[in-house]
């Protein structure tokens, strides 16, 4: 099977098609962005974007990604420029341990790509599903607001 991974075509050996997408991304493609937190979709640390939709890659069968576009944390920056969400994450100094932040950034990215002017309730509805144990929540909220205004300004 074949997927588009971070805008590049990638072939996958047959024996991997039933593997959860997370393990293919981490162990076959050697990506560090998507992370294992729970294996059952309860924390969101493994979030990637498939055809524009945020997906929990630990429970997403690789076969379901056939001929789809998979975007990971590694694919957000383009031509050496960080995506406004990543930029906002640095400017608001969001991460503590950093482990969940892939999920936070990817979930926020997918949300803002679909709904650039998402309001507080909509943001909470999405981001409540991505767990952070360090307590970076207040900064996540600020970073999303910052990314929104940056994206609006760039448009």
């Amino acid at each position, binding site marked *: 099977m074949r997927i588009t991974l971070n805008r590049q075509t990638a072939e996958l050996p047959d024996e991997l098609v039933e593997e959860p997408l997370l393990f293919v991304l981490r162990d076959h493609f050697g990506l*560090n962005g998507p992370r294992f937190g729970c294996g059952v979709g309860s924390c969101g640390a493994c979030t990637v974007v498939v055809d524009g939709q945020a997906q929990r890659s630990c429970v997403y069968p690789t076969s379901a990604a056939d001929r789809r576009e998979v975007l990971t*944390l590694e694919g957000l920056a383009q031509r050496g420029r960080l995506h406004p969400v990543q930029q906002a994450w640095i400017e608001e100094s969001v991460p503590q341990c950093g482990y969940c932040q892939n999920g936070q950034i990817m979930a926020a990215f997918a949300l803002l790509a679909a709904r650039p002017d998402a309001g507080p309730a909509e943001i909470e509805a999405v981001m409540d599903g991505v767990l*952070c144990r360090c307590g970076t929540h207040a900064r996540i*909220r600020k970073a999303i607001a910052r990314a929104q205004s940056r994206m609006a300004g760039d448009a």
Partner: protein
Amino acid sequence: MPSLSRRRFLIALGWGVAGITAVAGGAAWALMPTLPPRNAPTPADASAWLSLRPDGFFELYSSRAEMGQGISMGLRQVAADELGIGVDRVRLVQPDTSLIPVARSTVGSDAMRETGVLVARAAAALAGAVLREAARRLGRPVAKLQLAPDGIASRGETILTFEELGTDAPLLVTAEDVETATPGLLAGLDGRREVGRAYPTYDIDAIVTGSRPLYADDIRLQGMVFGAIVRPQTLGGRILGIDVSACRSVPGFLGLYRDGDFAGLVASRRGALAQAMGVLVIEEEEGPDIDSAALAGMVDIVGQSGGLEHSVLDTGGASAGPFDVDLTLTVPLAAHASIEPRTAVARFDENGGLEVWTGTQDPFFVRDSLADAFGIGRDEVVVHGMRMGGGFGARTIVAAEMDAARLARLCGRPVKVQWSRSDEFRAGFHRPPSSHQIRLSADAAGRLTSWHHAFRSGHIIFTSAAMGPGLQFGTSFVADPGVARGSVPPYATQATQVGFEDVRLPVKTGPWRGLGAAANHWAVETAIDALARAKGIDPLDMRLKSIKREHSRLSAVLTAAAEMAGWRSRPEDSPDQGWGLACGIYKDMSYAAAVARVTRSDAGYRVTGLWCAHDCGLVINPDQVRAQVEGNLVWGMGMALKEELFVDGGRILPESFFDYPLPVLSDVPDIEIRLIEGSHEPTGAGETAIVCGTAAVTNAVAAMTGRTVTALPVKQA
């Protein structure tokens, strides 16, 4: 099914009788358990931490692990200022047992207090050595040269770059250099550029892009396979039989490896490993039929007769009552719930040496434990410390490292073991449940006359997760200092009695952020608030008039937090909204006070305002100190409103986060923080605000309902 009856099994483990039998203890003592390194760092240690490398960068070998608390950036800032350079020129290397002298664990919010000043001294010493070396090379007197951000300057112009200077052997310092160095860190504000500046966490660029390996799971070795441990699912359970016949049809399954009671599966892919674990059949002799209520009963302080096992403080003059406030408070079992599960990669080389990559709070304890377990020299084991995806006390013992090393030895290949989330809950250790009987009286003017706090808790420092029966027995007569932490009130009282019992529970308990200070401060701050209500005194005034004079820094943070929140002009408490405050001192070094505003909606209690004033002395990196304050306050909110790890039918119930709710974005309001520098030396911030976050929230709930919150977490009304 089990052949032993439950009752017989209970006795065999020693839980059916009081304590652990002397026979079991005596036998295990002979084995000399591996103990974690305890010595404080010395100038000789520090002399090995910092050097100028051939590429012109200063390399700082950290002796303390990074788990998001910010020590890596903080130490770079300290070193940079002494050297007169920017932080970008200081490259930090995470703790690695092959690079640094033996160092003790990263615990107790002590990393900056214990190593910050030593790093400053080492850097000051290195600055001198760099100037002397430059003088020698240039043939000029040292007095004519200065350090500049990019090299050595004379009359304001760089005449020798660090790259040029570093080209030979790495430039090092001696223990004597470090001992005699006079760092600027503690001298005052002059010359500080990096210390006091706000920086995000070290490696943030890689965290937001995934651009390079940071955590143990990012380590991928040639020929590496994946392993998982076959564990009993019940507390005190024992595996009687393992049937892997169904696993054999899973492509990628490589086998079951056993060594005594240890058993693990190995697979070439993680999906295959998960699949094999899913079809594995185990026969388990189940442990005792314990549930949360039984655990609560084991730590019930009220049922205790006779004197307490351990006294923390007894001024004499104990009152026989009656008391103005007489509360029994309960704290449940709770999990660390770091998002990164314990993960380690282990590889034996052809000569029997062992190399391990892991996120650990105690790399040398891991090294020594592995060396002793495999009967090899400590210098034959190398532990590479990786960034931790959350520590919180959970990574203080040896866990996935031993799993990975044992499987690597058995299967002959490098092995990565990443605990499942279920392993995290069922094989990890947890914050112990505790109960607190706390009785207070005050005179008509509100002056405390009597403070009596008796509590009973599972072990913390003497954790059964790391200690075999011998050590458990040996420590059974010694007060667990982790349980005692934070139990002495900061309030002046005519007569104070604080004492406790520590009890060995059938669930593994151990260090959790703040140790006993989290539960004890909640009890103390709940009680003083209840006394204020009983006496009709404002909770702020009650505290300010009661805080002992020597704790003026506590009064200062309390006053500041109240001012930030507008405490004096707050609206009157109502059934829909209440205000609470709390304060405390962490380990006699750091101070925090918080105010919480809680509102009630159909969805339950919600914290809608949170203010905190915090004093950890000299602030190296205000951004990261603030982050720690925020984190502790969110932990306090979780403790107050959400977290309990349920046990039923002899097993820990949660297998994922679906069953263990954590605070989420909509639970957390904007948080306003003020940092006060009440001392010229840095102390610690990693756990400090845990002393006030929980009680600020529950006191706000009490203000709304008029009833003191006596059990955590608050039942959502």
